[in-house]
């Protein structure tokens, strides 16, 4: 199903003019599953997905659990490569997942952990040391910044991770459901920072189950179902089609459960 209408074209004319920086063409990803001694089974986590990303836009990805959204993000982060189809990249493009606390060492200080994360995200040591004060201020850790990170609360840890990730500037930022970080005030602040990135000329791909977040932040939305891209276009319309499909699926489930119950009840009566 394609949800591409004339409204989608007029809605975000700004995004349409921008150049395509990533082109995903009929991409599939195959995993190897162990099924026994010396036996493996192929399993396609993504079957056939196509779309493009344009400079400066925010692209939402929606779909049920297991549809292949995370697999797709890994491809875009260039952690893995497609097993079929191909992805065309603009030259010298950097992209990374907004991953919180990768390579985290609880024994070391927040400062050291910020440096590790920054290096892993592809920054140079010089750039990170220049950013450290900003990261410290943004994370609101204060004196805790030089304490072992193991003593942090979960929220503090997330704040540190988010502060580093948001300061590591990539051409393409990939975000997987991390908008709810820390307590209320920090959550607002992080959403604010995200929005600034999104409103600025950053290109962002956002995976979320929150339709409000997608509706609010995204210019365009891709809908993935069982490893295939089944819809793309303007946010409102794709979300509506998706919600309709979800409602329909839930209705079917309820009907089926009722039928099963009735059958069981009948058997018990006999």
């Amino acid at each position, binding site marked *: 199903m394609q949800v591409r209408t004339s409204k989608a074209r007029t809605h975000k004319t700004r995004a349409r003019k921008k150049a395509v920086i990533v082109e995903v063409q009929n991409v599939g990803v195959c995993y190897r599953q162990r099924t026994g001694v010396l036996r493996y089974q192929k399993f396609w986590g993504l079957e056939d997905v196509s779309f493009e990303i344009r400079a400066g836009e925010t692209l939402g990805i929606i779909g049920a659990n297991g549809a292949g959204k995370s697999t797709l993000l890994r491809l875009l*982060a260039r*952690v*893995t490569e497609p097993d079929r189809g191909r992805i065309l990249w603009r030259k010298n493009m950097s992209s*990374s997942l907004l991953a919180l606390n990768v390579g985290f*060492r609880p024994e070391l200080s927040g400062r050291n952990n910020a440096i590790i994360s920054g290096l892993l995200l592809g920054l140079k040591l010089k750039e990170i040391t220049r950013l450290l004060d900003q990261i410290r201020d943004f994370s609101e850790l204060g004196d805790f910044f030089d304490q072992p990170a193991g003593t942090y609360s979960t929220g503090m840890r997330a704040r540190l991770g988010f502060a580093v990730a948001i300061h590591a500037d990539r051409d393409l930022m990939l975000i997987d459901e991390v908008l709810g970080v820390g307590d209320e005030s920090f959550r607002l602040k992080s959403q604010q920072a995200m929005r600034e990135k999104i409103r600025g000329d950053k290109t962002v791909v956002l995976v979320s189950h929150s339709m409000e977040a997608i509706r609010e932040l995204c210019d365009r939305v891709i809908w993935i179902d069982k490893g295939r891209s089944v819809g793309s276009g303007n946010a409102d319309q794709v979300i509506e089609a998706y919600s309709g499909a979800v409602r329909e699926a839930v209705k079917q489930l309820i009907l089926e459960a009722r039928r099963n119950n009735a059958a069981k009840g009948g058997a018990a009566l006999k």
Partner: protein
Amino acid sequence: MEYRELVLYGVYTDLRTEVARRFLGFAWWILEPVMYMAVFYAVFGLGLRQGGPDYVPFLLTGMVAWKWFDGSVRQASTSILANTSLIQQIFVPKYVFGLIQILTNTFKFLLVLVLLLAFLLVTGRRPSLEWFGLVPVLLVQFLLIISLGLLLGAVIPFMHDLKLLVDNALMLMMFMSGIFFDASSLSEGANAIFRLNPMVPLIEAHRAVLLHNEWPHWGGLGYVVLVSLPMLAVAVLLLRRFERQYPKLIY
């Protein structure tokens, strides 16, 4: 090298983490090898009554060289697996993890080596020009460690079973490296097979330099280089070819 900073900072944080985690901190970098060697001295020196009066320096020299090899290869071989969650989120060239483990172990080895040299000086050995022969010996051993460590690290994610094999193969290799006995005491046929083990010429070279004030046997070192280079080539090829496949292999 683009990822030099990441490797060096990784080594630094690995060492810092070890110190921070333990009550006695970096004292363990010395205590642990001393204890390890004391165990083998008790078994072979006191229990089995091996060797003569020179058995302690003989054993120590061999053990120090062996432990560097063993610890590095063992940790490098599981280095990609140990970073599963990281490599599934961020792209990092996979050799980085093996290299960090090897360099961390090398740093700790150098500390122990200084201690060994001090022990040899205190017990009456005198350094001579030949002690400079230690430099090529260490470089060749470092090449062997990198080659085998990266190779195993590249292969093990495909077959986790291999990890069990490696543990036992390393143990066999230890007893077959001439750490506890002199190779010249073997029969000729046994000696030929025994000499296939690249750690044999290396440990002999360590002893030649430090205990007998002789230059190392260059042919022996040449053999180690010849064994290492193909392994290194295969390791680099595998790591390059499967760079972006590893995140899918492990979960």
